[in-house]
Every structure is written in C-alpha cells, then in structure tokens.
C-alpha cells in the first residue's frame, strides 16, 4: 500500500529523486558457459516465447587484416543461445560477416532473432533455426586506417565521441547527409530494432544518424523521420526503440535525456523526462504494459547513475532500482533490458561482461 502511494506521488512530481525504490534480487551468475567460451561486453540480451535467452556480446578479437591497399574488418562479436535455466545451448552465426561490434539483440513475436551491429551497420534477422532470413544495411567493404571520426561535426560539438571538424564518413558504405541519414537502409551506427503489430520493422539509427527508419515486413523501405537536434521529433543519439500493443513507438533519445513517443507514421505524440539518459528500454507484454528504461552510467564512471526506471505508458514513474557498480545488484552500463515478464528482467551490461536475471519485489 505504501508503495502505491509513493508511486502516485512520484508520478505527480516528475523529479528524479522522487521515484520510489523497487527492491529486487539478482542472479548475477545465471548463465552457464562452457569452459572455453567467455562473455565479453554484453550489448544485447533477449528472451523468446519459450524463455530461451539470446546474448549478443562483444568478444574475441576485433581484427583488421591486410588485403591489397584496403584493410578489412573481421570479428569481434558472437551470438549465444541459452535455455531458460541459463544452460548454454549453442552459438548462432559463427564467424558471420556482419558480427563486428554487437549493439543489440531482440526476439520478435514469431521467435525470430534479430541482431543489430553498430560497426557493420547491419540488422540481421535469424529465423528460429538460426538461418539468416532477412538483412537490412550493408557492411562497409573496408576500413579506413587510421579511422576517420565516427560522428558528424554537429554531434561532436554536442558531446559525441568523434573528432570535431569531420565531414567525411568514417568508412565506405555510409551515406546520407549528416544527421538524418539516407532514405534507405544505409545505417550509421544503428542501435535497436522493433516491430509493430503488422510486422513492420523500425530501426533506431542511431549514434551516427539521427532518425527512425521504417520498413515493411519484407524489408522494403517505407519512410524515416528525425534529424539531429533537441526539438520534438529530433534526436541526439537514438539509443533504443520499443513499440507497445497500440503501435506507439517509444524512442530512447539518450543525448536529450528523454523518451519520445510517436505514432507508427512518425507523428510526435509526447515525451517522458526525469529518467536520466535512456540507454536501454523495453516494454512488457500483456494487458497492462510497463516501460523500463535504464539511465546507464558511462563505461568510464561507476560513481553516478545506473538506475533503471519503471514507467507506465503515460510516462508516470512507478519506481526505480539499482545503481552503477560492479557487484551483483549493481549495474555496469546496462545496454539491454529484456522484460517479457513484468517482474523478471534480464539485463545485459557493457561494463561487467555479464547478464543479471533480476526479480523485482
């Protein structure tokens, strides 16, 4: 009862500190790996309808090899499947051409497994058997060494990681004007993927571009919206995307410290603030849906942030839990939340190279 009152209070006063604490337990040692397989930075974690778990991790050796005059990029990420008890099942997409820098994995309602790779600029759909079923985007043929800056000048000025003054894309195969991105499946550091009830595909694109790109279920480009900025419908680091049962599109606009809500056609509806910088979001299924959003700490600082917020779909904060750190029940740059069940979450951490299974109380 006390929690309910606190929740109502928190919703009325949208200040960060007002959100009630949700108590929780963690199984930080939940996934069991074979002796010769190690998780690296866990960029993505997702469960399918049977509770089987998919982890897309930055591991192994990101490699540039010498070709002719062009250096070629290989490897650096792997996709693993676990059963619902955390037992290792198999690897999917071994040595895939598109696995360079893991960014996200999501499972659609038909149990297809979708991965988003930030460096190959690809969204790859695997069917439940692990076969490649659909590709969006194309990996650059070669790398520039030394690398050109990652992000356009505008974002660099806004605090992006690139070097100011850059006007050329970092690698071949990237296109479009700075900010918005081309009207196509040419991505620039995409971050996430989601589907509406018709199966249309929405890609968060991303850290290099500043748009949401929409495709039909066959992968044909429909439209995209967004440009770099802080106004309604503008983005600064599109870090995640999720869609509710009414086909509203929730976009984690991390650099602007907000979640923007759109209709399926890109019409701006509202925005949620007071939740820090949303780096990972998810929406629970079922009749009454909730939204989780992580105010992830940056990888170079565990002394601030890190908490995860629970909101209803009107943006009211129901509570928050956790903080940055390295211990169990602490979070190291959460990059993915899987919330197939309202009170049982999987979180993937960049900083702590692990998946925690959280039980909220």
């Amino acid at each position, binding site marked *: 009862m006390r929690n309910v009152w606190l929740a109502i209070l928190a919703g009325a006063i949208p200040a960060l500190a007002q959100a009630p604490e949700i108590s929780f337990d963690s199984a930080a040692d939940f996934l069991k790996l074979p002796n010769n397989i190690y998780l690296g930075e866990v960029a993505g974690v997702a469960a399918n309808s049977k509770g089987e778990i998919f982890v897309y991790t930055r591991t192994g050796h990101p490699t540039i090899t010498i070709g002719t005059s062009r250096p070629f990029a290989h490897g650096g990420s792997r996709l693993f499947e676990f059963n619902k008890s955390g037992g290792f099942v198999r690897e999917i997409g071994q040595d895939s051409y598109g696995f360079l820098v893991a960014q996200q994995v999501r499972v659609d309602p038909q149990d297809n497994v979708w991965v988003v790779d*930030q460096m190959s600029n690809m969204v790859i759909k695997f069917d439940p058997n692990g076969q490649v079923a659909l590709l969006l985007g194309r990996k650059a043929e070669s790398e520039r060494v030394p690398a050109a800056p990652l992000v356009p000048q505008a974002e660099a000025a806004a605090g992006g990681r690139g070097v100011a003054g850059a006007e050329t894309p970092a690698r071949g195969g990237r296109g479009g004007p700075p900010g918005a991105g081309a009207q196509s499946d040419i991505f620039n550091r995409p971050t996430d993927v989601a589907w509406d009830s018709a199966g249309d595909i929405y890609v968060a694109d991303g850290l290099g571009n500043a748009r949401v790109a929409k495709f039909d279920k066959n992968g044909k480009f429909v439209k995209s919206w967004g440009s770099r900025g802080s106004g309604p419908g503008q983005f600064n680091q599109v870090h995640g995307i999720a869609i509710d049962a009414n086909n509203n599109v929730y976009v984690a606009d991390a650099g602007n410290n907000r979640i923007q809500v759109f209709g399926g056609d890109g019409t701006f509806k509202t925005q949620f603030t007071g939740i820090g910088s949303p780096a990972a979001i998810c929406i629970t299924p079922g009749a009454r849906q909730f939204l989780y959003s992580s105010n992830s700490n940056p*990888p*170079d600082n565990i002394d601030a942030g890190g908490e995860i917020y629970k909101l209803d779909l009107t943006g009211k904060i129901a509570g928050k839990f956790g903080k940055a750190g390295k211990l169990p029940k602490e979070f190291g740059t959460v990059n993915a939340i899987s919330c197939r069940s309202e009170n049982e979450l999987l979180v993937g951490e960049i900083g702590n190279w692990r998946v925690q299974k959280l039980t909220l109380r």
Partner: protein
Amino acid sequence: MKRCLSPFMAALALLAAPALAQSKAKAQNVPEIPFDTVPNFLKLPPGLYMGEAMGVATNSKGHLFVFTRSANTRLFEFDQNGKYLREIGEGNYGFEFAHSVRVDPQDNIWVVDEGTNLVIKFNPAGKIVMVLGHRPEAVAGAVATNPPPPRQPAGKYTFGRPTDVGWDPQGDIFVSDGYVNNRVVKYDKNGRFLAQVGSETPGSGPEQLNLPHGLAVDAQGNVYVADRSNNRMQVYDNNLKFKASYDNIGTSWTVCVSPGPHQYLFTSNSNPNGNPPGSWENTGEIYKMELDGTILGKFGHAGKLPGGFQVVHMMDCRNPNEIIVAEIESWRVQKLLLKPPAEKPASAAAR
C-alpha cells in the same frame, strides 16, 4: 666558453642517459647470489607455443600462470612441476597484448592487458568475475598515433596501457598505469576508485612517476612501484603518500615482494629490448633487498641461453629462494634455485 658549454653538455648527457645503461646508478660491491636454473621447466604439449613471456605468477598450490603474447595473447596454467594443465580466458574480449598476471591471496588470477586497457579478475575456476577499465570500442577504429593525440586527463575508471596489479591485506586493488598515464591507482575491493599517485603527465618528483611498469604491496600495505623511466623504485604508503625512493638498482622493470613474516623485495634491472651494444655488460641482474631498501645480493646477467636473462619482465617470489622469471625476448619462463650468497662480494659486482 666553458661556462657556456657546460649546461649544454649536461643537457646532452641527460638526453643520452637512456641509451647509456652504465650511467644509471647502481650499488657497488653487492654480493653475488649463485643459482641454478631448472632445465626445461615448463612442458608445453605439442602444438602449443609460448610467445613473449610477459607475466608469470604462482598460486597457493604452486601452480603457475603464464600470460604470453603468441599469435593471440593467451593465459596458460601449469602445475608446480611445470606440467601443462589448461588454458584460461581463450578468445575473451580482454586479451590483445599481455602485460602482467598476478594471483591474489584467495587464488584469483588477475591479468593486465595493455592492448585492451583492462585489468581482468578470474576466479580460481577461470571465470571472469571483475573487469577494471574499459576497452576502446572497435567501432571507433584504429586511432592515429603519429602525431600522438593530445594527452587526455587520466580517468578514474579507464587506463592508458596499464602494466601491473597488486592488493593490500584489506583486498584493496592497486593498478600501475602505465605507458600512457603515469600513475598508480587504488580501488577498493569492489572496484571503486579511492586514490591515485601521479597523473597522466610523467615527472620525476617524489609523487610523480615516469612509466610505472610494475608494482608489489607488502603486508603493511606499502606499495613498491617500478618507476622504470626514472630508473628507480618508489615506495608509497597505503594511501599512496610518498615514503622512500630506491635509486641504486639500475632500471627497475618489475618488482615482487615475498610473503611470510620476513618479507624480501626483488627488482630486476632488465637488459633493454633489442640488446643494444654494451648492454649485456651492465644490465640483466636481479636484486634481492630488504623492504627498507638494503641490498642483500644480486644474481643473473643478460644472456640468451638458459641461466641468462633476456629482458626479465616479471618475477614470482612466493618462495624467496625459488624465483620464477618470465622473459620477453627468450619466450621463456625459468625457475631459479637460489643458493646461499658467496662469502665475499664477487668481483663481477663491480661491473
């Protein structure tokens, strides 16, 4: 004219100093400690090859952990007799360019990788249980280093080519960092930043460092830092405040402190990489010291065959009479059995 020239000559001498090993201060008339090297100590299975042996450490059972740069950087475990047991961390995200391995009192295995800027803690079963630092993201690509990028302030939770790790009796963690930064950082046992000495900028003051290349912590929590490019060892207290400086041991590449009620300190004046002319005559020896800096003796010299040292990069001194050394340029780990020192200083000590 002389007055004008002498500062210039002094500056020239300073510039030339790194190339002239004999100009580094060394104690004279140090007793020579005789030793034997165990022949063919580590036995690798067919198909496994050691590369540059960067790190070696033993656990409480005497098992050896060797962190080596082969085609990929790899971590091998051997039993106390040198028999190969297993590989740990194969293909993990943190292994690109080995630098150090140490085993803490609970037998956790910690590695320091200067290619990924990470310190990784494996539990005794070989599972990763903590990561310090953050690997630069591959999506950023290869960064130009010529000209070098401007020096960045050292972050609390990121490293610049870190070199070594140690712990005090409370489990607090000390990291020497390193080639890019020039500091030692202290974390609590849960990985939270507590303090540092030095900074991103190299220097030669008492609380400055210039390529801190290794460290060890004694039972009182004092920290001994191999301040390599300053040709000295710096001693700091548990809060990283300056205590002492030992500058009569050549170039301190790596240090270790033995356990037990009477702790000894070892430091290696390793021969420089590439064996420049003249270097074999006055580098390569390892010093055995009291914690207060008193030199008890020295052993070894530069050389390529077993018994000689080729750039000793790390030492294990869990048993102060059985020193295990990892060498960069001989791709080798040697176990050295020290004997009682000679009665009087050997003539070689004057070299």
